[in-house]
């Protein structure tokens, strides 16, 4: 397949996954705020920070209110990661590559874009918002399912999977980071009896990844910070765990030509994850550790781009 098409379809996979993750995150934050007592300062601005969007958000994230954060996250076309922008980007990439995927898949993306375009700005109120976010999650799941069920498992399919799993690994690490490094310390400060809230927090982290039940079945212990972090980083079977995403990448790379460099990068990160001592990291240094994981993920992206995507077009003199 063409290098340009590989690049586009990889980004389509990333943007679709980004939509789903953003929808999950907003949903769970809403539920978390309903559970936590007054005085615990897990604000709406946290959402903006998780997405790494503080620079784009024009207001103070400490004092951000629900309405403005929701408008920013759902429908702001100036926000490069709002649901609407991500879906518009997914659609644009799909439009350029529509000849290589089943037409029903393009129709689904196109239809979801129009759905968000029509309803996202009206879904600031909680009840409507919940319906909209559920619909987005369902549609992205439907997208994934349609591809698994109707698209030849060819190179193009591998690039969609690459995009999805890299984005997913990145987002899972981000969510853990926010839980462990940003929300928890604050909750501890605000409330001396922090233990119950810490549990609520980690449960909501798991729920944002639809991982609560899977965690219970796997860990067989009550929810606690260390086990949750290990589960979300190291579990080989849970689809949103970083290790699982990386094994998917390994699988895709093995099917693609010239994949030595990319395989090398992903193997290095997997070794590092396997050897990580999370018990020690929980006390100090988890945030820095997650930073290095994220830069490794960026390095994998660089390897993919350098190996398969179109070189920047040289305008001949």
């Amino acid at each position, binding site marked *: *397949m*063409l*290098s340009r098409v*590989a690049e586009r379809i990889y980004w389509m996979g990333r943007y679709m996954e980004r939509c789903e993750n953003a929808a999950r995150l907003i949903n769970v934050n809403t539920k978390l705020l309903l559970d936590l007592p007054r005085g615990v300062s897990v604000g709406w601005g946290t959402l903006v920070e998780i997405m790494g969007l503080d620079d784009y958000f024009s207001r103070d994230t400490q004092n951000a209110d629900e309405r403005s954060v929701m408008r920013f996250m759902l429908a702001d076309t100036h926000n490069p990661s709002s649901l609407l922008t991500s879906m518009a980007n997914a659609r644009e990439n799909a439009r350029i590559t529509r000849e290589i995927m089943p037409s029903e898949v393009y129709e689904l993306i196109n239809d979801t874009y129009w759905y968000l375009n029509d309803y996202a700005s009206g879904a600031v109120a909680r009840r409507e918002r919940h319906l909209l976010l559920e619909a987005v999650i369902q549609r992205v799941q439907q997208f994934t399912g349609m591809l698994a069920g109707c698209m030849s498992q060819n190179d193009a399919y591998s690039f969609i999977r690459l995009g999805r799993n890299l984005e997913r690994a990145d987002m899972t690490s981000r969510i853990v980071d926010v839980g462990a490094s940003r929300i928890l310390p604050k909750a501890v400060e605000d409330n001396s009896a922090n233990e119950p809230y810490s549990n609520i927090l980690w449960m909501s982290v798991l729920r944002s990844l639809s991982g609560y039940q899977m965690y219970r079945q796997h860990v067989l212990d009550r929810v606690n910070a260390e086990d949750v972090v290990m589960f979300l980083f190291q579990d080989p079977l849970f689809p949103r765990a970083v290790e699982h995403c990386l094994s998917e990448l390994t699988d895709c790379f093995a099917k693609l030509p010239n994949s030595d460099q990319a395989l090398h990068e992903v193997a290095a990160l997997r070794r590092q994850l396997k050897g990580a001592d999370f018990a020690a990291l929980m006390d100090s240094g988890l945030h820095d550790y997650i930073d290095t994981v994220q830069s490794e993920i960026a390095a994998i992206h660089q390897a993919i781009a350098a190996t398969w995507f179109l070189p920047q077009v040289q*305008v001949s003199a």
Partner: protein
Amino acid sequence: MEINWRDYHSGDFYDELISSPGHPRKVARQLAKHLAGLSSEEIAERKHSAELAIKTMGISFTVYSEAGNIDRAWPFDIIPRVIAHKEWLHTEKGLIQRLQALNCFIDDVYNEQRIVKDKVLPAELLADSVNFRPECVGMKPALGVWAHICGSDLIRDNDGRFYVLEDNLRVPSGVSYMLENRKVTKRIFPELFENHNILPVTEYPSQLFDTLAAISPRPLEFPEIVVLTPGIYNSAYFEHSYLAQQMGVELVEGSDLVVEDDHVFMRTINGLARVDVIYRRIDDLFLDPQMFNPDSVLGVPGLMRAWLKGNVAIANAPGAGVADDKVIYTYVPQMIKYYLGEDPILPNVPSYLCVDKKQRDYVLENLDKLVVKPANESGGYGMLIGPQSSKKEREEFAARIKAQPRNYMAQPLISLSTTPIIGSKNAEPRHIDLRPFVLQGRHSSVTAGGLTRVAMRKGSYVVNSSQGGGSQDTWVVVEEDK
């Protein structure tokens, strides 16, 4: 609204469906009856589902405007336009004959130029042609075919006959909309397809593939065919991607291709892959910056060299546009006689050449009755529509014609036929034309019908979609003898 054919008046114009108020043509009788039987709610509901289907399927076209490029939903009216099969067989033959003669002509002008030596075509007409590419002289493309894909515009006059208005041999577009119109109609009127014997149109992409495969320079290999597009901002991008998808071939931009050792390759995730056939949807002058416009980034440096050496096939071949000229058009009936020894099956619209003294005098005396067209503009630019013009405009045109007679030809204003569309209170007549698509490779074929374009504004002759024109599904219906 409900449809009442007794209140439908097309005036002096030939109507495709209704011969006189209350009387549908034989071939449209069942359709007219079915439409008249629908309640206003049913019609509104079908109209709404058509709009929804078009939005979901992403059937769009791009319009250039000052605010950037806007993707618009494809404009579509739900009433199908109907053509009788017997009549179509005749038209089809005429179109095939026409493209064969045009291909003989193009091949001749880049090689022996017999038609000029035999004085059938005046030498100065060819010498002054802006679409003649000296770079192509001496080229012998596979099968002797230069124009593999042709979109001819047909209109029907008051007498009910089809006339050829022009031939588009450069990068004719619209075929994807013909195919999508049929899909939408099947979604909203499935019951009509049970009761009518309508010729299918879905074979076009495989016929196009076969046509392209037939000219591959490596006949023993499975051909690597690509569609070359200028990119996502082109108004016909939807069509480029649609055809690539339907044929199962790569859609490429210039930057995806590279020429090495006079062979064309595309950049893939496996490295470079050889390309055999390029269905190009960009104009000649943008194809190769080394040979034509040096500033163009749409094309591929070295592409023309690879083509001239026969290492890659290009459809339509560079230079094929020489026959797209509106002055050359007036000679097509003579070409058919000259090259094929046959009488033309389809007539041209009567035309007057300004380069000929006698005809020019007639044009200058009758500017208020004629349509004057420049030889090489497309999209209806730079025309004078005599009956709607001011005295000042006619004087200006007279001066231009006298200064450059080669650049102008004139035709009487044709009373385009009408067909009903859904109006606000009843079905209303609107002017239409028809663009069938003709293929020539090892075999020739014509689409069953084509793209019907509709001038949606009452009384208007403008069918162009960027100027508010619409479209309808086009049916070639086989009548059963009862």
